[in-house]
């Protein structure tokens, strides 16, 4: 019975792995000609998984009832929240990828499979309640991601991005693994519940080292400063659909992981990691903002923007309470919508021959030549900057409100003042598109799927998004409650 129950809780992972294997066979038989069909099938699989996941979130599943495989894995509302965002990011990647790769004749039928396996790894990351399950999920995702970053084999920048990501990613995995082993050594357990109990008493120096190493490894995965160096290079070098993927799904999974580890596994000692998170948050905000100023490539700029935004999200984590976690999840959901809108818009920037346009200078006067696209990008920029009435403001709002309620007034004041630095480069992009003379480089047409995706995501980040605040708040509340249930 226990086996059946566990199998039922990990249902989405089973669907993903089995359908992934079947599609792998299909890919081997069908070759690259079948890549479109396999992409469509993969999106269908992700949709099924999302449908399977949704009830756990809506019913606010939590506690031992949804814990599977002897406490290795939890199918609670928090995991469901993370998974839904991960699946959304993965599905968007699959939808936009074929058109991009086909131009270079680089579309391979493995691509959708890599996305599926990565999605499965990320599902494990947000569900893991044991250090080993966590590590397996993380590596499953990372291996797929390294290949995806280097997917344009003929492109030097793509190969470089893949290699950089691989080398630095392995280093971070090593640090994380070292932290896990230290934690295990000093607490005698790899399960989050066991670590939580073991850390409750007086803290040994070794355990502190374990916590620090685990957090450092995870900070790399969420691309928080000072472990952010890989982000701009990988975001710039990777093919744009893959960058879309990196900016959404793995970010959600890694942040979910970080939240569960900090708030649950290390939840008994918030004082130990809180100051680290505060430091990392402020540093990410400032470095993300300052680093972006000099960029002339829109993808690099968005990479720094993601560092900046992770900093804001970490302010929610620094609160170390349920309200902070819920705020962080709201921000995360909005951030995924903003990233999708941003990168889909970047994908639609193409010149006459259909080659991607990435330089900000080439976007000059976009509002005259392509007003709708410029409007969408302007909405993304103002939203990322957190200027009301765009929905990006709401993410910052809930996070800072949680910080104020938790008494972290200084952190909130410094963080929000630093957000003004960030506003500078966001409005610079708007300036280039709206105030400058038209460069008239962007002329390529984009397909219907991209336009639909852009429209939907821009509507979500427009002021209409505020109508979602109530339901989003309730769902994030369920997820955060699940995170704190056992703790």
């Amino acid at each position, binding site marked *: 019975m226990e086996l059946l129950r566990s199998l039922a809780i990990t249902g989405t992972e089973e669907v993903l792995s089995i359908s992934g294997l079947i599609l792998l066979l299909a890919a081997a038989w069908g070759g690259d000609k079948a890549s479109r069909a396999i992409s469509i099938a993969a999106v269908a699989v992700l949709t099924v998984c999302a449908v399977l996941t949704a009830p756990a979130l809506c019913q606010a599943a939590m506690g031992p009832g949804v814990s599977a495989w002897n406490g290795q894995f939890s199918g609670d509302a928090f995991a469901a929240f993370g998974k839904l965002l991960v699946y959304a990011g993965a599905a968007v990647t699959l939808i936009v990828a074929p058109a991009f790769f086909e131009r270079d004749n680089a579309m391979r039928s493995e691509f959708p499979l890599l996305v599926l396996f990565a999605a499965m790894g990320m599902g494990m990351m947000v569900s893991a309640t044991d250090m080993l399950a966590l590590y397996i999920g993380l590596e499953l995702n990372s291996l797929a991601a390294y290949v995806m970053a280097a997917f344009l084999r003929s492109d030097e920048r793509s190969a470089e991005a893949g290699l950089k990501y691989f080398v630095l990613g392995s280093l971070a995995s090593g640090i994380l693994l070292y932290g896990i082993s230290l934690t295990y050594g000093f607490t005698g357990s790899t399960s989050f519940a066991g670590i939580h109990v073991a850390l409750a008493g007086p803290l040994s120096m070794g355990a502190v080292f374990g916590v620090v190493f685990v957090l450092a490894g995870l900070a790399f995965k969420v691309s928080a400063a000072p472990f952010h160096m890989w982000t701009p290079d990988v975001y710039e070098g990777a093919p744009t659909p893959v960058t879309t993927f990196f900016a959404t799904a793995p970010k959600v999974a890694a942040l979910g992981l970080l939240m569960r580890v900090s708030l649950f596994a290390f939840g008994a000692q918030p004082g130990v990691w809180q100051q680290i998170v505060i430091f990392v948050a402020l540093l990410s905000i400032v470095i993300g903002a300052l680093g972006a100023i000099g960029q002339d490539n829109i993808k690099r700029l968005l990479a720094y923007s993601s560092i900046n935004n992770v900093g804001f999200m970490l302010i929610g984590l620094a609160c170390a309470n349920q309200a902070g976690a819920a705020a962080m999840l709201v921000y995360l959901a909005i951030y995924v919508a903003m990233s999708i809108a941003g990168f889909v818009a970047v994908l639609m920037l193409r010149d006459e021959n259909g080659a991607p346009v990435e330089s900000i200078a080439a976007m000059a006067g976009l*509002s005259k030549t392509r007003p709708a696209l410029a409007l969408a990008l302007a909405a993304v920029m103002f939203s990322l900057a957190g*200027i009301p009435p765009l929905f990006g403001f709401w993410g910052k*709002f809930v996070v800072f409100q949680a910080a104020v309620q938790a008494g972290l*007034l200084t952190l909130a004041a410094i963080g929000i003042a630093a957000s003004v630095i960030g506003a500078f480069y966001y409005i610079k992009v708007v300036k280039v598109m*709206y105030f400058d003379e038209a460069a008239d480089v962007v002329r390529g047409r984009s397909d219907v799927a991209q336009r639909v995706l852009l429209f939907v995501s821009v509507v979500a980040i427009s002021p209409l998004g*505020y109508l979602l605040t109530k339901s989003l708040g309730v769902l994030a509340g369920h997820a955060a409650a699940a995170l704190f249930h056992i703790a």
Partner: protein
Amino acid sequence: MSGFPILSLMLLVPLIGAVACLMAGREQARVIALTATLVDLVLGAVLWSHYQIGGPQWQFQEHASVFAGFEWKLGIDGIALLLIALTVFLMPICIGASWNAIEKRAGEYYANFLVMETLMIGVFAAQDLFLFYIMFEAGLIPMYLIIGIWGGADRIYASYKFFLYTLLGSVLMLIAMMWMANEAGTTDIPTLMAYSFPVKAQTWLWLAFFASFAVKMPMWPTHTWLPDAHVQAPTAGSVILAGVLLKMGGYGFIRFSLPMFPEASAQFAPLIYGLSMAAVVITSLIALVQHDMKKLIAYSSVAHMAIVTVGLFAFNRQGLEGSMIVMLSHGIVSGALFLAVGVIYDRLHTREIDRYGGLAINMPGYALFFMLFTMASVGLPGTSGFVGEFLSLLGIYAQSSWVALVCTTGIILGAAYMLYLYRRVIFGVQKNADAAAMSDLDAREWAMMIPLGIAVLWMGIYPETFLAPMRKDIASLEARLAQARPKGDADVQLAALPPAAATHEHGDAMEHGPQSGPEAQHEGAR
């Protein structure tokens, strides 16, 4: 009228117009924009006519809890009513001013203006702390685009400066608002206005709000964005910037800083006096040496806004009422002056004062209106400027005679730079042939000038129309401030105030009587 969501409708009309403008060409866009603003003007008139003077403090209340964390909550008192009236009055004139001047990307231009109108009305009508913040802050986007796209040569620097200055000012206010909502357990502005925050916390909260409002107002020394923004903005942009956007700072003080943090306001009153005195003298002197007409008027705005702040922080009824009237008057007068500059700019495409001269000969109609607005800016009795400045200075005189003395020099300097400007542009010989060849006002310009002229004279001759709606709100604010009021330096209460107070009660008693308090004082002053 009860139950009909007229405020939401006033927000919705320009918004729909904005979407329509985005899709329309130049010809249709300006017609749509004019229609939308005129509809809002009519709605504003309906709003005023149904506003019960002396009725409940908050009227036309609407409430819908559709958001998490804050609510869609609207409602107005007399102070908000007057500022909304100012907004809807100036908007059609702005559209008129842009009628021929804007040729490129007209659809986007009018859409930005209409969005701006929605947000400005939203700021004054919001009854929820965070709804107010969203409206307050959102105005940055359309204004950034208006300055940046349709502005003059140095528009990009000006737009950045405007955006980043005001954003930095506002974000700290957001943190303060969150703390207040957390402390008081509500985001309802009327409730917060009666809530007593701990005095120690008030200091910090007041400073955070001050950071925002001082930049918006703008107060010296954070005013430097204003001349840049004004000079570079198109005429209508300047009108709306000077006419309404600057009033958001004053509205912020009167709605938030004073009633919510009375003790801190008293504590920081010397700071306000110091900055205001500096502003009055310094910016007036700067205005005196300007060669650019718009810059001159921009600096004069800073000086006038300083009179508003001293009046507000006089902690008495004359000061508060006077400040409100200065705000309304300055909204109309500075808007009209920017419009007047725009009229000749459209003809000669320069704002250099030296390029004009002797316009009274070829543009007599224009010279007449320019004269009226110049006099109103100087504060000549009979125009709107006099009523407000007189009341404000009277209010501050009761509190501190030194501040009153220094601020009064602003009136003298104001007369100096405005009359000097008028002399150089309108009188003298016609030294430039192209300026001499300019035609007088056309029908469209007459149509814009006449309502402004009427408003200036109405407010100057019969200010009771504008004092009556806010009298009760000002009185309750004065009562709220009474216990925190700092002691004045001159003991003038005994000698000077009873007659003034008596005239006020007289005015109260005769709500619609022909003789109002300030008028009586005005007579007395002469």
